[in-house]
């Protein structure tokens, strides 16, 4: 029984940095995807959708990766504090921006893709 737990601890010591780095990589990829979405989407409301990828997915993955990489317990607690704060305030700030835009009567983009002069041409949005 004790040998089993010792083997488990040694495997965990090997797996932990690899898993942390993999989670950091996934988080960086999600952050890049969110940035490309914010840059390329045509409308404010669609950009909001792209930005929330960063606010939830990238924060969750990167905080999990950093927590797995943390050498001491104090740094683990600090990483957890950053994660909880970002995870609470990110969607709240997104909702505040969306509410302000909706209150200011910012119109979402509707219509068709394609040529501007012929609205019937192209695929429906």
């Amino acid at each position: 029984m004790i040998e089993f737990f010792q083997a488990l601890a040694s495997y965990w010591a090997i797996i932990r940095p690899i898993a942390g780095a993999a989670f950091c990589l996934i988080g960086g990829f999600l952050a890049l995807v969110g940035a490309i979405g914010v840059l390329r989407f045509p409308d404010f409301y669609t950009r909001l959708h792209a930005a929330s990828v960063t606010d939830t997915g990238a924060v969750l993955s990167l905080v999990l990766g950093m927590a797995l990489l943390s050498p001491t317990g104090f740094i683990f607690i600090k990483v957890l504090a950053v994660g909880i704060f970002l995870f609470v305030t990110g969607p709240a700030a997104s909702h505040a921006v969306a509410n302000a835009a909706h209150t200011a009567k910012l119109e979402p983009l509707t219509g068709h893709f394609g040529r501007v002069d012929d609205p019937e041409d192209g695929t429906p949005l």
Partner: protein
Amino acid sequence: MIGISVLLLCIGTALILSRALTGPTLYDRVLAVNSFGTKIVLLLGVLGFFMGRPDFLDIAILYALINFVATIAVLKFVRYRSFQVTLVRRDTEDVRARR
């Protein structure tokens, strides 16, 4: 692999900063600045682990706090043109009568 993550986050911040500079409406800019702040917080944390100095996390916590408050403050100033208006709804007579 953490270095690749730092590189990806740097590219993401550059892209989202270009949206903040060229955004057509004010709300695009506010959204881009908020997202930029989130990305910078994550970049600070990952960069601390990449350089072997996780003390950067204190600065990351501080920047996360300032980022949230700044977003709400900018939105409130644009709506009311003042920082002195309370955000709590006044309990007026007709609201009390409707209860």
